[in-house]
């Protein structure tokens, strides 16, 4: 034990450090399962807020879903929204405090099933907020039921024989739909299963927050994610399953990066 401690202390010297946890992320043990993507994305959000120096100006809105307790981990002010209503809550905050940074953080059930209307209309209004979307193709919190993004054939507790199109319809690519909306400024789809992917996602989140400062419409970042517990796979196998099955259906990359549309394109000709 002491040999190990000695060796660790030898490595962890200030001059050897290449990375330190953001002070905005506290030391509480996260409630997430091993292999879950939520924790990584939390860390990236904390780092972006810290690096931009906007801790005092940022308000987060947590969803109902596994990330309901996001407020326990990142040291900023938070509001916990009802299931699906985070974009409306974020709208309310942003409209009365337009000088603040406001972001919502939602799972696929929250954002693309029960809260579809709030999601669409917040983006269509071009609310100057950041929306973070964790797509793990399942309802993690309630024990692994089908999500709108569950793939055809995917087994969940409410599709025990696999998602069947006749019964359940198709996986919803809501991010593609949102990219069509004139209010969207920046729409991107990322992942966090490799160091390279993590770096890209962090860049995307940073860009989303910078767009908010420019007030040019909604910045939307989807993160294709894993749910080892819900998928009943090891963390390593989950990453493999995600790459093989999720990425073809939910291809990574930017879907829109133009700022919101010019209102003149939509204006009536004469009163």
């Amino acid at each position: 034990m002491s040999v190990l401690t000695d060796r660790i202390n030898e490595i962890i010297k200030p001059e050897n450090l290449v990375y330190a946890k953001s002070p905005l992320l506290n030391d509480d043990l996260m409630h997430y399962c091993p292999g879950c993507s939520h924790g990584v994305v939390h860390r990236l959000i904390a780092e972006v807020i810290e690096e931009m120096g906007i801790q005092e100006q940022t308000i987060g809105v947590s969803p109902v879903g596994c990330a309901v307790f996001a407020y326990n981990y990142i040291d900023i002010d938070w509001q916990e929204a009802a299931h699906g209503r985070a974009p409306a809550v974020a709208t309310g905050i942003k409209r009365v405090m337009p000088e603040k940074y406001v972001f919502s953080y939602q799972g696929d059930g929250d954002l693309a099933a029960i809260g579809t209307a709030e999601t669409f209309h917040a983006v269509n209004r071009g609310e100057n907020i950041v929306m973070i979307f964790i797509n793990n193709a399942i309802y993690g919190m309630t024990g692994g039921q089908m999500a709108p993004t569950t793939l055809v054939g995917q087994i969940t507790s409410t599709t025990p024989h696999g998602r069947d199109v006749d019964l359940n319809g198709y996986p919803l690519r809501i991010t593609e739909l949102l990219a069509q909306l004139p209010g969207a400024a920046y729409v991107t789809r990322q992942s966090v299963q490799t160091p390279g992917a993590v770096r890209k996602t962090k860049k995307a989140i940073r860009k989303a927050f910078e767009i908010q400062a420019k007030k040019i419409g909604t910045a939307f970042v989807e993160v294709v994610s894993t749910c080892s517990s819900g998928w009943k796979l090891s963390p390593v196998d989950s990453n493999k399953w995600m790459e093989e099955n999720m990425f073809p259906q939910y291809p990574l990359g930017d879907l829109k990066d133009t700022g919101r549309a010019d209102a003149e394109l939509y204006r009536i000709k004469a009163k």
Partner: protein
Amino acid sequence: MGELRLMKGNEVIAEAAIRCGCDGYFGYPITPQSEVMETLMTLRPWESTGMVVLQAESEIASIHMVYGAAGAGKRVMTSSSSPGISLMAEGISYIAGAELPCVIVNVQRGGPGLGTIQPSQADYNQATKGGGHGDYSLLVLAPASVQEMHDFVILGFELAFKFRNPVMILADGVIGQLMEKVELIDQRPRWTNEQILEISGEWATLGKPSGRKKNIITSLELDSYMMEKNNLRLQSKYSQMKAEEVRYEAIACEDADYILVAFGSAARICQKTVQIARKKGVKVGLIRPITLFPFPEKIIAEYATKVKGFLSVEFNAGQMVNDIRLAVNGKTRVEYFGRMGGIVPTPDEVETALEQRF
């Protein structure tokens, strides 16, 4: 004396909101209250006071926008009519659970379902018994005039912040559409950021400066003992409301043999009934509850030992009558008369009902 105007009840809600320094309104159109948002949009208060007005995609979105903005310590409100209030029920429960102040106006129409756009008081139980899930209460104000529509917006915000609790103005289609003389308050400034910091800085999400703990707006608590404690705190707040905020009007009750109990526009009809009955030599009085929660049970209990009976007059199938019976506790007779479906009874009809029942 403030500015005098002839205005519709719904228009006055908008005017009073702007003048009392309200920070935001979020709503969705529905008859018979659409004039509230229409008036706000016409007056463009974002250019004068800085008040935000937003037409949301639904009542669900409206109430959760109110949640967000109220969580930021702002004075915000919404308005709707019966079906829209049903859609808001989950959100109102969250607002009560997270202990946020806001004002919600319900200009009631007849139900159930899509029902009718004619006036009704059929949401009495929904308003006074919470309306959504969980043990919570709204503070419910029942205006009986256009002036009270005005006054209760101002009072509503005061009470909402005193208790950190949603306040409902439970009006009906008559009061919403009625035009009357109203005295308006002079324009008051919206709270400054410094004032908000002082009033709500302990809990509101204003952005976390270093040195203070993060503020979290939530109704979630998975520890049962903590959750029970939260519930007990809410209950003690409701007890305090019962002790401090009961409001009612008692008309001609001192010598009365019979007392009518009615709120909102039903009370105005009953006022006339009192005159008609007294002309006929029947000593009739009227108790008009102004707060429906807390309910004026003490004054009703006091008169229970003095009168031969109470008649509850409501535009519904008999909802408030149960609260009167609880207050009376068997000491005298309590009867109900009402019309449904948007029918407004005449004073004579009420008088006949009184004769028939007693």
